[in-house]
C-alpha cells in the first residue's frame, strides 16, 4: 500500500502507482485542454467516489471526457467570503474562510503523485501531500500541486454517483495548505489575508490530533507573531532554556547521538596524547563530558590530563552556571582518577572569543579538540561572525573539530522556502517524539522545539539565530575555510546504532553514514548530522 495516499484514504498498491500516475497525467492533460463548459464542474467541484478504488475513479473521469455527462444542477462554485481578497486566487489551496461548514467546498484540491516507486514514503506522514511532490533532497521547495482531484466533502445532487465524506484527513491536508498560503501572504506583506488565514489555521488545527496539531499550533503562533510584529523575547533565562534542553535530552536520542558520535571522534584524535584540552562552544549542563572522561579513564596505559574550557551565555542574577557544571565534572574526574582542570568563559557570542583568552599551550604538549553542538549556526546572522570564529578555531590549532548541526536549510533568503523546509523538518521531529511517553518531559521537549520554530519563522536579522544549514552547506564552508574532513569511524556508527536500539522510544530512528559523517533521522528524513574536521595540510 502506498503510505502517502493511504493517509488520504486511498488504498493503492505501490505496484499500481505507475499506472495510476499515468492515468492522472492523462486526466490532467485532458482537463487542461478542454475548453467547453460541459466539464467545468470537474474543475470546480471535486467529486469523490470510493477512495479505495482510485484507478477505477480515474477511469471514470477519463471516460467522461469522451462522453461528456448531461448537464446537471449542482452546487455552483459560490462561497461567501468576508475578506475583500479573493482567496480563490491562491492556486490549489483550500484557503478561504467558510461561513458555515455545510456550505462546503468548491475548491479544487489537487495533488500530484510522483510516478511509481520514486515517491519516497519517507518523511512524516503528516505532510503526505506536500512531501509527495518533493524529491528527497530537501533543498528544493515542493512544486505545488497538480493533477488529481482530492476527496471532497461536498454533497452533489447527482443521485447515481456514490459520494464519500472524508473529514479529518482532508482537514489535515487543508491545514498544511493554509499554513503555506499564510506564509505566502506574509511574504507578500498581505496582512489582511495573512490574518484571515492564520485564524483559519487555528480552526483547522483544532480538528487534528497528535503531532500534527502541535506542529501546526506552533507554526501558526509563529506566523501570528510575525504578522502582528509581536516578536518573542530572546532574552529568556538561560537556565530555563537549559532545563528545556535537559528534557529534550531525556525524551529522544538526538542529543545523545550528537554527544556519542562527537566523543568518538575526539577520543580517536586524542589516542596518543598525554595532555588533552577540549573547548566546548556550548557547555550547558556538561552532559557530553562524563562519557568522554570515563573513556579517557579506561584508556590502556592510563588517562591523560584532561582540561575543559566551557563557553556559555551570560546568566542573570549572577549565578555562575559554568562554574557549577565545572565543579560537578571535577568531582566526577576525581572519582574516576582523571587529572582535571576547568575554565568557564561567559560570552554573548562565539565571535567575541579570542584565542589569547584560552591559555593555549603548545601543540606538542597538549592536544586540542573544539566541540560545537548546535552552536555554529547562530553565527550566520551577522556578517563576518562566522569567519571570525572559524579563524579563531584555526588559531587554536585543534587536532579535531567536531560539529553537530540540524540537517535542514532554514537559512534561505526566501521566507516561504524557509517556512516550508521548517514545516517538513519539525513535523518529522515532532512525529518522532510522539512515540515517547506522554509526560512532562515530552511537553518540555516540545516547548524546546517550539521556541526554535518561533525563531525560524517570526524573527529576522540579528534576532533570528536558528539559521540551520545542511551538511552539504557546512562542508562547503569548512572546506573553503581551510579544514579537511575526518571520517567518523565504524565504532561511532556501531555505538550510535546500539544506542538507538537500546532507546525504548520507537524504531523509526535511522543512523546513516554520509561520506564519513553520521546522520540521525526519523524514517527516511535525516534530522541531525555529526561531522569532524582537522586543519588542512
Amino acid at each position, binding site marked *: 500500500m502506498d503510505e502517502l495516499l493511504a493517509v488520504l484514504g486511498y488504498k493503492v498498491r505501490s505496484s499500481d502507482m505507475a499506472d495510476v500516475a499515468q492515468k492522472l497525467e492523462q486526466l490532467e492533460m485532458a482537463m487542461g485542454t478542454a475548453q467547453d463548459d460541459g466539464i467545468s464542474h470537474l474543475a470546480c467541484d471535486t467529486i469523490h467516489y470510493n477512495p479505495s478504488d482510485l484507478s477505477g475513479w480515474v477511469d471514470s473521469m477519463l471516460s467522461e471526457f469522451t462522453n461528456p455527462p448531461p448537464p446537471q444542477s449542482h452546487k455552483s462554485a459560490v462561497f461567501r467570503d468576508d475578506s475583500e481578497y479573493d482567496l480563490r486566487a491562491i492556486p490549489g489551496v483550500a484557503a478561504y474562510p467558510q461561513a458555515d461548514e455545510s456550505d462546503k467546498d468548491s475548491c479544487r484540491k489537487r495533488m500530484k503523485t510522483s510516478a511509481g516507486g520514486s515517491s519516497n514514503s519517507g518523511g512524516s506522514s503528516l505532510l503526505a501531500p506536500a512531501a509527495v511532490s518533493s524529491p528527497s533532497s530537501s533543498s528544493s521547495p515542493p512544486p505545488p500541486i497538480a493533477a488529481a482531484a482530492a476527496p471532497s466533502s461536498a454533497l452533489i445532487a447527482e443521485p447515481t454517483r456514490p459520494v464519500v465524506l472524508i473529514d479529518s484527513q482532508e482537514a489535515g491536508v487543508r491545514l498544511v495548505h493554509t499554513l503555506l498560503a499564510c506564509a505566502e501572504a506574509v511574504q507578500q506583506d498581505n496582512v489582511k489575508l495573512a490574518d484571515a488565514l492564520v485564524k483559519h489555521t487555528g480552526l483547522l488545527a483544532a480538528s487534528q490530533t497528535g503531532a500534527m496539531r502541535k506542529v501546526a499550533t506552533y507554526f501558526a503562533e509563529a506566523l501570528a507573531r510575525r504578522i502582528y510584529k509581536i516578536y518573542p523575547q530572546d532574552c529568556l533565562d538561560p537556565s530555563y532554556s537549559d532545563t528545556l534542553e535537559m528534557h529534550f535530552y531525556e525524551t529522544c536520542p538526538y542529543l545523545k547521538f550528537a554527544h556519542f558520535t562527537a566523543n568518538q571522534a575526539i577520543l580517536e584524535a586524542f589516542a596518543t596524547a598525554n595532555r588533552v584540552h577540549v573547548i566546548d562552544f556550548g557547555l550547558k549542563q556538561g*552532559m557530553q563530558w562524563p562519557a568522554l572522561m570515563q573513556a579517557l*579513564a579506561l584508556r590502556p596505559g592510563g588517562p591523560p590530563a584532561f582540561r575543559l574550557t566551557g563557553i556559555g551565555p551570560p546568566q542573570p542574577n549572577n549565578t555562575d552556571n559554568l562554574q557549577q557544571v565545572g565543579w560537578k565534572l571535577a568531582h566526577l574526574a576525581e572519582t*574516576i*582518577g582523571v587529572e582535571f582542570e576547568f575554565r568557564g568563559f561567559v560570552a554573548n557570542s562565539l565571535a567575541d572569543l579570542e584565542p589569547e583568552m584560552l591559555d593555549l599551550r603548545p601543540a606538542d604538549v597538549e592536544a586540542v579538540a573544539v566541540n560545537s553542538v548546535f552552536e555554529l549556526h547562530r553565527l550566520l546572522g551577522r556578517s563576518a561572525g562566522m569567519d571570525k570564529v572559524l579563524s579563531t578555531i584555526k588559531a587554536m590549532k585543534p587536532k579535531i573539530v567536531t560539529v553537530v548541526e540540524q540537517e535542514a536549510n532554514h537559512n534561505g533568503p526566501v521566507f516561504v522556502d524557509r517556512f516550508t523546509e521548517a514545516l517538513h523538518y519539525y513535523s518529522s521531529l515532532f512525529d518522532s517524539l510522539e512515540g515517547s511517553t506522554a509526560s512532562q518531559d515530552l511537553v518540555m521537549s516540545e516547548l524546546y522545539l517550539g521556541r526554535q520554530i518561533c525563531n525560524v519563522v517570526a524573527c529576522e536579522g540579528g534576532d533570528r539565530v536558528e539559521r540551520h544549514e545542511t551538511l552539504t552547506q557546512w562542508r562547503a564552508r569548512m572546506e573553503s575555510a581551510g579544514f579537511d574532513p575526518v571520517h567518523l569511524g565504524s565504532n561511532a556508527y556501531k555505538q550510535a546504532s546500539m544506542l538507538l536500539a*537500546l532507546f525504548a522510544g520507537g524504531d523509526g530512528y535511522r543512523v546513516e553514514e554520509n561520506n564519513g559523517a553520521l546522520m540521525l533521522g526519523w524514517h527516511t528524513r535525516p534530522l541531525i548530522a555529526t561531522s569532524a574536521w582537522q586543519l588542512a595540510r
Partner: protein
Amino acid sequence: MNLDENLLYEVLKHADAATLGRAACVSKQWHRTAQDERLWELICTKHWANIGCGNTQLRSVVLALGGFRRLHSQYLWPLSKPQSSSSASGSSSSAWAPFPPMIGAKPPARWGKDEVHLSLSLLSIRYYEKMNFGNRGR
C-alpha cells in the same frame, strides 16, 4: 543448612547472571553474598571483549561509577537481548530505565567492544545525572 559465606561465594563464582539473580532471592545471607561486586565483576568481564585496560584500572572506575552489578543489569544485559522492536515504553518515564531481566534466558556468548564502551558511557552519564539531584537541583 547454613553455608559458610566463603563457601557460598566460591560456589557462586561459577554461576551465570540469571542464577546469581535468583540466588539473591533465597535468604538474607545469600542476598548479601550474591550482591558482592566481585561476583558481578566476574559475570561482566568473563564474557566481554578485552578493552585494553588493566583489571585494577577497570575496577576502580566502575566501582566509583556505580558498580558492576548495576553496569550489568542496567546496560550490559539490555544490550545482550536480541534487537527486536521496542516494547511499549509507557511504563518508564526515563529512557534509561532498565529492562526487566529475563529469568532463565541464556547469557550472551560475548559482549563486543562497542557494547562494553556504550555500557560504560551510559553508566557514567547516569552517575553524573544523579549528582544533579544531590545539588540544588536542575
